[in-house]
């Protein structure tokens, strides 16, 4: 985020531990994540469905919510829609086994600050949580690929005149590198820019993804749903 005063070289551990709520309908998975996160963060609550999550998050106001995309009672999206306007300081990181592009794009559009797959390793997950807590956006290679795919439909340039509706050349380059498996630091070195600039680009992409009401974006997601 451009307005946040985040340090130039993340991840930097904040003074107090980051407070996290886990939302997933599988107890085994929650305890696994809790173990993997270890001491890196302070898990202050867990929930297994939409109503429980809304209650726990409202009560604890954590820094980061690790949110499963598929949940009984409306899915992660319902939680985001209920809480994002009311709790602007709580940040959501989607954590899902789902490969379905429309699921991923819909939680991002509902306000999640990133998306990682459940195959992520423990240290990587802890790192992602700290980044999100620090105001950054976490793009997994898969999410970067989805976004490139969704915005690639911009072949019809004449129909698109809003800045929100297309990616800049630089943003595209950054996303491509992330999709290729590069870390932010490696992206920065490859493009001869600072890590901070990489984060700014990624945040801008997230904002476009959330705010753009391009028809193509909806249509793209709909097309994918049918497969």
């Amino acid at each position, binding site marked *: 985020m451009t307005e946040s005063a985040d340090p130039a070289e993340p991840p930097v551990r904040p003074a107090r531990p980051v407070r996290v709520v886990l939302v997933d309908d599988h107890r085994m998975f929650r305890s696994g994540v809790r173990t993997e996160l270890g001491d890196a963060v302070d898990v202050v609550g867990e929930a297994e469905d939409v109503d429980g999550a809304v209650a726990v998050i409202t009560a604890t106001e954590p820094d980061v919510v690790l949110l499963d995309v598929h949940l009984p009672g409306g899915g992660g999206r319902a939680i985001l829609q209920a809480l994002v306007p009311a709790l602007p300081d709580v940040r959501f990181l989607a954590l899902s086994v789902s490969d379905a592009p429309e699921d991923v794009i819909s939680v991002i559009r509902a306000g999640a600050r990133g998306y990682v797959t459940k195959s992520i390793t423990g240290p990587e997950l802890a790192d992602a949580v700290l980044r999100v807590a620090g105001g950054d956006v976490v793009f997994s*290679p898969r999410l970067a690929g989805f976004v490139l795919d969704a915005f690639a439909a911009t072949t019809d340039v004449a129909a698109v005149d809003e800045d929100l509706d297309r990616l800049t050349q630089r943003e595209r380059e950054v996303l491509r590198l992330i*999709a290729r*498996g590069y870390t932010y630091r490696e992206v920065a070195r490859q493009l001869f820019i600072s890590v901070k600039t990489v984060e700014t680009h990624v945040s801008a992409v997230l904002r476009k993804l959330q705010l753009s009401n391009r028809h193509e974006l909806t249509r793209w997601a709909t097309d994918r749903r049918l497969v």
Partner: protein
Amino acid sequence: MTTTSPPTPATQPVRAEPSPRRLYRSSDGRVLAGVARGLADHLGVPPIYVRLAFVVLAGAGGAGIAAYGLFWVFAPQSPFEVDDGPHRERDLTMLLALGSLTVGGLLLLSALGLGLNPGLAVPLVAVGIGVVILWRQADDDARQRWRLATGTARLSGAARAAGGIALVFVGAGAILVGPAKVDGTSGGLVAALVVAFGLALVSGPWWVRMARDLSAERNARIREQERAEVAAHVHDSVLHTLTLIQRHVDDPREVARLARAQERDLRSWLYRPVADPDAMISSALAAAAAEVEDAHGVAVEVVVVGDCPVDERLRALLLAAREAMVNAAKYAGDAPISLYAEVEPGQVTVFVRDRGAGFEMADVPEDRLGLRQSVVGRMERHGGTALVRSVAAEGTEIQLEMPRSHQ
């Protein structure tokens, strides 16, 4: 159609609400065919209102009667059955309903301008009552089949059906010999029409039922086939894998490989379109990555942007990418390999990246054919390029570019 037991909202939630909501004729708490009751349940109002509405409409030129008949034919009977009340009482209310139906029918006739000419009206009413009895009997038959009825119930049903048929034919006969004054050549035609119409009325319920049963049976068969397919797939893949995993509990690497292969398989079965996996570049790359995963026990994360059919050039690209993945798998250690492919209008680009030790291309012996021949050589032979970037201790990235052949 005026008397009924009072509405019983307390029993309403018991009936499982099928979704999406559709209109059924109620089979419990009904008076004649359950149309009013079913409509009331569907609309969420007490049945007595619906019944009153039908009666009022019946006064309006018999429209209520016609509407009731149409609902009877087109709304299916509810399969959610609660036990009926005592039989005798039901027959009484049914007689009452038939009586009011008769009055309504006469009103309908007068509205149609046929007047209350007794010579015509009486046979027509007889036909009408016969038809109602037959249709109702058909409903009862259907219900009894659901409940696996005994023979005795069937016997009284047969008697009722016979009565209905007799009424229809007597009525038709009365029309023929009575006021219609059938004579001459046209008389024969009218007679034939009346007989045919009578037959259609009598056999109608069974035709309708047969058609409904056929479609219900076909739906059931389709569902059964789908279920069998799911069961077969779960058996062949998931159960099999679980067994294998149990056998390999001591070998975490093998367990991980099995679980990953199974996950991929299930995922592709659930989410991917049914298509030739090799026809499109995205699915072909995913399949190649899966083979490498299985053969070398390393995870490959596949991200593909865009898609296009595989032609001869792209087949070469595919093989080169596969070889690059194999190479990465051999030297990357346990870290996952990233495969990224982007289909653009002019070309297809593939990146294969590992986080292994890295190497110097110059250090690779001349006789090692993998990278040099299978990747770089193959790409160049087909008009593409291959680029290898390797940094010691950071890993290797192979970039493959193939221009698309344009038709």
